[in-house]
């Protein structure tokens, strides 16, 4: 009797939960529940279009779909993270270039389209076992193929991580913070649908009021991001560097095997160390918890030397040199800084 009474009361709450789940699914601010979103972006990139407002996508998936739709290999491709996103094709003269800013070599290999040169932008956290990076899971099939091919030990990790990630995605359906974001996007859309973050559209411009995904795969930041004076704090500098006590031997081995497999495929590998903002770098090297980035840079330099790989740049902005106003934030250098690093080797003319 009491249970029945309680169940009836619960029914009165269904509209609230229904509203939360419905709005989260329908508005879906991070495009978690829509498959067509990434394909649309990839198709436009393949057509050589610039796309404005293309945030909130699964960039790994976009890159994979892009390669699937490509017909000719590139002269140069760029792998790495967001640190390398501002490297544009114009830095490399007339060569065909695509900036993936995510490591996606296995997809190229499987499609038989390995490029002539791969620029690998190296982050310190690549060698941190606790870097918390799960974004590679979008490419889990290709990841596992690479793991098998290189006889790496960690393929057993993929399934639970994928399960955990998909669980997390579906939990967003009932997430109050996702609901608030959905509500915000919905209200912005009522005023002007073009202003909804992630609602992408084709543009001829290379720089605009919103971020633009250029047809060469690189990212052009908004005019606002370009003009603002960034707030540099410790938190922004330490992303993915938490609990980084030592260079993880497994990650190191995976990295070395992967690089040597690229070399065996006849690819010219170039390492790029993108610098930190001067204040962020100073904080990292003076903090006992993050000083390890010095060891990581030494290791990258040593490995590059042993493997006869050209290494450009440094985590230390003073080595380039790049000044504080050549950064978007703690970790992301502006085009002028990145072009300076690459110009000696590749030249823009």
């Amino acid at each position, binding site marked *: 009797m009491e*249970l029945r009474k*309680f169940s009836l009361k619960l029914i009165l*709450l269904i509209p609230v939960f229904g509203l939360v789940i419905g709005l989260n699914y329908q508005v879906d601010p991070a495009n978690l529940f829509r498959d067509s979103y990434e394909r649309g972006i990839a198709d436009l990139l393949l057509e050589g279009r610039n796309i404005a407002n293309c945030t909130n996508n699964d960039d790994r998936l976009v890159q994979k779909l892009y390669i699937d739709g490509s017909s000719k290999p590139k002269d140069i491709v760029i792998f790495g993270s967001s640190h390398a996103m501002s490297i544009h094709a114009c830095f490399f003269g007339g060569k065909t270039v695509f900036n993936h800013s995510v490591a996606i070599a296995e997809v190229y290999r499987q499609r038989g389209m390995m490029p002539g040169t791969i620029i690998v932008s190296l982050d310190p956290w690549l060698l941190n076992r606790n870097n918390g990076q799960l974004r590679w899971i979008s490419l889990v099939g290709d990841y596992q193929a690479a793991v098998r091919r290189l006889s790496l030990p960690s393929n057993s990790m993929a399934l639970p991580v994928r399960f955990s990630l998909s669980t997390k995605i579906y939990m967003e359906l009932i997430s*109050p*913070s996702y*609901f*608030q974001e959905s509500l915000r996007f919905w209200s912005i859309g009522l005023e002007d649908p073009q202003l909804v973050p992630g609602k992408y559209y084709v543009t001829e411009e290379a720089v605009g009021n919103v971020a633009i995904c250029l047809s060469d795969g690189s990212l052009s930041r908004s005019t606002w991001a370009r003009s603002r004076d960034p707030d540099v704090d410790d938190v922004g500098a330490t992303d993915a560097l938490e609990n980084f006590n030592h260079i993880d031997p497994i990650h190191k081995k995976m990295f070395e095997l992967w690089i040597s497999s690229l070399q065996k495929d006849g690819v010219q590998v170039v390492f790029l160390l993108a610098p930190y903002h001067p204040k962020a770098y100073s904080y990292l090297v003076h903090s006992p918890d993050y000083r390890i980035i010095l060891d990581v840079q030494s290791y990258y330099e040593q490995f590059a030397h042993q493997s006869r790989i050209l290494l450009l740049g440094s985590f230390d902005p003073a080595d380039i040199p790049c000044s504080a106003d050549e950064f978007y934030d703690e970790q992301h250098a502006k085009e002028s800084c990145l072009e300076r690093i690459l110009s000696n080797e590749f030249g823009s003319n």
Partner: protein
Amino acid sequence: MVKAMLFNSVEFFIFFPVVTVLFFVLPYRYRWFLLLAASCYFYMQFIPIYILILFFTILVDYVTGLAIEGTSGSRRRLFFLISIVANVGVLVLFKYLNFLNGSLSALFHFAGWQYPIGPLSILLPIGLSFHTFQSLSYTIEVYRGSQKAEHHLGILALYVMFYPQLVAGPIERPQNMLHQYREEKHFDYQNVTDGLKLMAWGLFKKVVIADRMAVVVNQVYRDPASFNGLQLIIGTICFAYQIYCDFSGYSDMAIGAAQVMGYKFTDNFKQPYWSRSITEFWRRWHITLSNWLRDYIFFPLRRTLLRRDKPLPNWLNLVIPPLITMTVSGIWHGANWTFVIWGFLHGFYLIVSALTEGWRARLLAFSRLERFPRVLAVLQTISTFALVTFAWIFFRAPTLGDALYIVSHLFSGLNAVLANLGNYDFIANMFTVLGFEDKVDWMILAAAVVVLECVQFLQQRGQVRVMLSLRPAWQRWILYYSLLAAILILGMFNRSQFIYFQF
């Protein structure tokens, strides 16, 4: 940020109903195991290996509890001491070792000597002080003979680990909880709905008030030198509300979650900022800790002093127990000199309050304020709130230097503020730099505090639950929907931890 299953997380919104449904579906004899397994899972969301610390102290308390009950004389005392040393030892090792090491290092540095040991890399187990004190109260009560030793290891483990109160209390006594874990709990409509309402109210306090206040507090306390005296005062008052809503919100959710399953926890807060004296404040703030300190430190200490062969002067009997008790309270909260001073300051308040009782009574009679009891009550409430809030400066400031800076600059720049009281831009800018650029955020904050104080006003007069039940259903449901809408739309769900998790 340390990973944990927070009461304000989506994970908990799934975990709690699943465990509750299983609890009522399972036969009575398996329920203790379900709750224990759920509590282990809950705790292991933090650092899984740290559960061994809990297992260790539970096992020691289990064995020594039985041994204390079965022996007498010096052996009984020995087992009691073993349990105390094991529990306090774990607390010292994980919470205070770095503090002691750092203090020694500073002392050596001051003396110009080399100190060989650097900072130790130890992550504080979540809620360590809470479950240690709860474990200690079991041993002490068994030793005192007021509680029988628990023969069921699983039930004792559940007493220490029951997930709603595992990481931030209430700190329960074995007399209140152990028997409850043996009782067969049935689905009770009143308990379930009251518990859920209390959880919703606690969540409102946490995500709408505390986490919104945190924006201002963090801004001010990150760099106090950037703000004038009025902004420092506003930041500190915001912290007073933040910590109250954060901790009492957690307590409400813990009490509510347990109540849904039929378990009754002790109330932890009773409108503490409505207190008219510091003594009353400590009867209303973190009640279970206050009672613990009172019963296990204050009273025994006072009895010891009064029973001395050579009695101490009366004023010393008045000074020593509160000063030591409150300093221990400060140390319990955190391994930092700021917490020690916070506790010491409250001890000082209590001593001054006791020593000046007669003088204050004469002043009251002289002022004739007693003829205006409401005015008197308001004045006493405001002055108590001011004293408590002043002490919070030491609690919140990251370093002693920051705390002293704030204390010494509370009235700096006030002339400029007074001169610009009519200048809207000046006032608006003063609030903007405190963290909220939009005045709507300030209005939401103010409205939320008004709602809080209205509810507390009603709580002073009786049980809000009962008052609600007397209203028509449509009015009640408008309130429930409003509460849910406020949580969903105005809540800040950025996975901010509960402040007391760190203790």
